[in-house]
């Protein structure tokens, strides 16, 4: 009765490789359909357990990515189910494309914390760890929802709410008429419904396709790394880029001459703004001048300011720091590995805020940085832009499910089914869209019936 699930797993170390984990009884059959081995013609399902295979993920004729696939047979796997892990090229749209290819095979996108949940329920995690597992599930799903909601502010949320409203209204009308046939008639309603469903479906389709081609994926929290030359800006950027296995994409900005890199920190999307290519030069201030730095700082939602722990505070430093007054900023003191006792006090006095000591080179102090970003996000000091924005595959899948449900309503209409059949799929669509906004159905239908239609004896 257990189904097969998949998700981008963030569990492994850096190096720009993403891992997609597939777990469940159908795992190897699914892999057989989408994996083409480079050397042997052997199918994944015929491979021995705990082996790795080199080849391609294919979607029909199209080659999606060059990958390594680990085969792990139940019960000696993380979830105690059959597991395959696809190592693909991370940091790009490719990862998502591979995941999509897997999901197209009828695999369900894993819920937040679901691998861990399965691992536990299948006895793979020590019973004494139950509490920790519950914490993980709690935290992951809270974050997922919060993130999803935060990103949905604006047009998409409005659009989804409108479509949901239409669906429940139609359902309520049908149901009111079924419950009170002597007062409410459905004569002629089918044609009206058909027209409306076609429109809803088109609007869902637009949402899905704009999510697909990334137009909707405008940006995360606009983040600029600022600092004097040679303080370690590039190292920090590269560290983030290493952290970005989950949802990463490169988007060439269309309106500005900048490259944005979308990375995620604890599930929060950041657009790292590489003004005129921070990566190519350490010496941003020198190259583009204070004016441009100022402009970048002004546009940023978040500034990561880096100072050098081994250097004194210069006039140039003070000038740069003046740019971040009244901006959301995190002050970092880098290169603490190079001095005996790092002293953030002078910097703290100057900026009147807490300074985090890090070593980008030794990867020290990063947790505190990530904690701070996360905390700011939850305190709503940071938020996404109110643009069309659909992130995860989960949201896209919910849109797709709603779209399919509307298709079924049309099928029922075409097949001349009685009206009571329509409401089954209308409610399915309503529920699917509710998953995106985190709203459950509860008593919505009954409430709508009573609110909008005069019922009763």
């Amino acid at each position, binding site marked *: *009765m257990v189904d097969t699930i998949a998700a981008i797993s963030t569990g492994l170390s850096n190096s720009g490789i993403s891992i997609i984990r597939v777990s469940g009884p159908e795992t190897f059959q699914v892999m057989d359909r989408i994996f083409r081995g480079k050397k042997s013609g052997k199918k994944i399902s015929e491979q021995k357990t705990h082996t790795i295979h080199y080849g391609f993920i294919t979607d029909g004729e199209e080659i999606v990515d060059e990958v390594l696939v680990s085969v792990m047979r139940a019960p000696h796997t993380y979830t105690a189910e059959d597991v395959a892990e696809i190592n693909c090229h991370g940091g790009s749209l490719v990862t998502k494309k591979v995941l999509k290819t897997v999901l197209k095979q009828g695999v369900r996108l894993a*819920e*937040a*914390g*679901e691998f861990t*949940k399965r691992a*536990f*329920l299948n006895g793979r995690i020590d*019973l004494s760890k*139950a*509490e920790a*597992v*519950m*914490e993980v*599930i*709690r935290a992951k*799903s*809270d974050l997922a929802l919060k993130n999803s909601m935060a990103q949905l502010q604006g047009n998409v949320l409005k659009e989804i709410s409108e479509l949901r409203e239409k669906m429940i209204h139609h*359902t309520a009308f049908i*149901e009111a008429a*079924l*419950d*009170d*046939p*002597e*007062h409410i008639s459905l004569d002629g309603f089918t044609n009206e419904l058909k027209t409306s469903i076609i429109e809803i479906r088109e609007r869902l389709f637009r949402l899905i396709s704009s999510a697909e081609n990334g137009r909707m994926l405008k940006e995360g929290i606009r983040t600029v790394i600022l600092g004097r030359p040679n303080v370690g800006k590039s190292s920090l950027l590269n560290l983030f880029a290493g952290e970005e296995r989950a949802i990463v994409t490169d988007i060439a900005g269309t309106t500005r001459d900048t490259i944005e890199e979308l990375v995620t920190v604890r599930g929060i999307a950041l657009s790292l703004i590489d003004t005129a290519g921070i990566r190519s030069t350490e010496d941003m201030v020198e190259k583009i001048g204070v004016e441009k730095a100022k402009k970048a700082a002004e546009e940023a939602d978040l500034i990561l300011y880096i100072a050098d722990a081994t250097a004194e505070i210069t006039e140039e430093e003070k000038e740069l720091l003046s740019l971040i007054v009244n901006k959301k900023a995190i002050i970092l003191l880098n290169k603490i590995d190079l001095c005996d006792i790092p002293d953030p006090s002078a910097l703290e006095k100057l900026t009147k805020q807490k300074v985090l000591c890090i070593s980008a080179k030794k990867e020290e102090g990063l947790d505190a940085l990530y904690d701070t970003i996360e905390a700011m996000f939850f305190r709503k000091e940071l938020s996404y832009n109110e643009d069309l924005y659909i992130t995860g595959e989960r949201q896209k899948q919910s849109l797709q499910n709603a779209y399919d449900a509307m298709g079924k309503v049309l099928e029922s209409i075409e*097949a*001349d*089914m*009685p*009206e*009571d*059949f329509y*409401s*089954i799929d209308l409610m399915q669509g309503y529920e699917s869209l509710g998953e995106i906004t985190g709203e*459950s159905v*509860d*008593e919505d*239908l*009954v409430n709508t*019936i*009573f609110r909008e239609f*005069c*019922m*009763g*004896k």
Partner: protein
Amino acid sequence: MDQVYESYDIAVVGAGHAGCEAALACARLSFHTVLFTVSTDSIALMPCNPNIGGTSKGHLVREIDALGGEMGKNIDKTYIQSKMLNKSKGPAVHSLRAQADKQDYSREMRRVLENTENLVIKQAEVAEIITENNCITGVKTASGAIYPCRAAILCTGTYLKARCIYGEVSNYTGPNGLPAANHLTDSLIAHGIEMYRFKTGTPARIDKRSIDFSVMEEQFGDEKVVPFSFTTDPDSFTKPQVSCWLAYTNEETHDIIKKNIDRSPLYSGVIHGTGPRYCPSIEDKVMKFADKERHQIFIEPEGNYTNEMYIAGMSSSLPEDVQVAMYRSVKGMEHAQIVRNAYAIEYDCINPMQLKASLEFKKISGLFSGGQFNGSSGYEEAAAQGLIAGINAARKLQGKEPLILDRSEAYIGVLIDDLVTKETHEPYRMMTSRAEYRLILRQDNADLRLTKYGYEVGLISEERYQKLLKKQEQIAAEMIRAKEQTIGGTEQVQELLTALGSTPLKSGSTLAELITRPELTYDMLAPIDKNRPDLPSDVTEQVEIELKYEGYIRRQMSQVAQFKKMEHKRIPADIDYDAIPSIRIEARQKLKQVRPENVGQASRISGVSPADISVLLVYLGR
């Protein structure tokens, strides 16, 4: 002075629709049962609308019958008009509704009760429940008579501290001027039971001779009447039917109401109880849906014994003079003579979340309850709960597991699960939209769904059960035959199809495939179905429905399979929700309040999220 009288196995308090089913079930299962009522003349009284069934309520009656209850049989004996509603819609929402002769209905039910072995009827007001160590041990009447018992079922309907109100008139009586039960509430509160106060209402009754029916639309019953009970022979069942009448309110009616709205106790704040949204008073309808120019009203006979007509759609608690003007503003009722005024009634009931799905109180072992006392509304909802409470009180004394129907098995399951799981702030009415698996919860297959349970419980005879098994076999065999029976494109076949407005065959087909065409039915295809066996119509009806809607039904069945997984994950009764730190506070409070019996029920509590359920699953998996 208190005095102890004879003991009973089970005491049932109240002889309305819930109490009657409860008492009959207990007595028929051989338990010595006493049934208390404030008036033996009000047994199975229908104090409001004169009909049984209706959308989704008709389903409940069929289910009661399939389980071995009485309501279906009783309305079959006493109906004066019958109609299958929603016939133009899918089979899942077809619903039977019959007008009853109220006095016949009540008398007939009383006759059945009085002729049931092990059943004693007493006219007395039960004032207290008596417990020891949180177990029920007896009940005490207002006169001080104590009757020890091993289980008790409270079905007090709208009688607890009842108050009838219209205008400034406020009578401390139950419906129809019957005595209210003013003591039991205090005893329940003393036992730690949380009470609610709900209200409902009823329209005026008007003398038929004062109504001009010639300006109204006549509403007839169906020509071919379907009985409620699976045991009633449809052929011996038809009889002459009476008509109902359709009329409308108008602008004048609405003006009268609007002008006097401040005199309505609903609006002036005299009534505190919560009323059902499904049965709004006419003043509510006019105020809330101000843009509606008219409202439909149905004028229905109360029975063959009387001239009184029930004015459905115009319940009210407006003062007498406003009522007279309001009813007389309706076309055809200009000279209306009101026999009984419309009134609202307020009464005490419980918060049903204090009950288990067996309808036993969580706090008091052996104490069960059903009907409006549980916060529902309607005769059928009451009878359904009464039956389940009766069965489960009996099973408790038998030392057996309770009968709990889940949401995928019966409307009764949906009804009880909603009551004990979701917060109700108004009298709960059954609706088809509340049943998420309604394609398989049809009124036509209630016997196939439930009669096996009635048989296991002991309320269904061996003979009836064997008949059911035979029906099942016949359906299964005919389904197989229909799928295998090929039909070629012969001249006869093409001719018939064309004549029936269907497209001729391009290649061979099966009987089953042809039945899935919307324009065709099983019966229509008889001439080209050479090997058709002679089968009863209830069998072929099932075959047709199962084939016609197979895709949808299959989809719903797979949803049910998912649903069952969670229903089967039981939560131990002694679970300590405070020991699960990762459940959010809101969810924890709700879980502690409801104490769900399984994970499925937990997931339906509002305020419990999917993540909370994941956490709960992990906790249970420890």
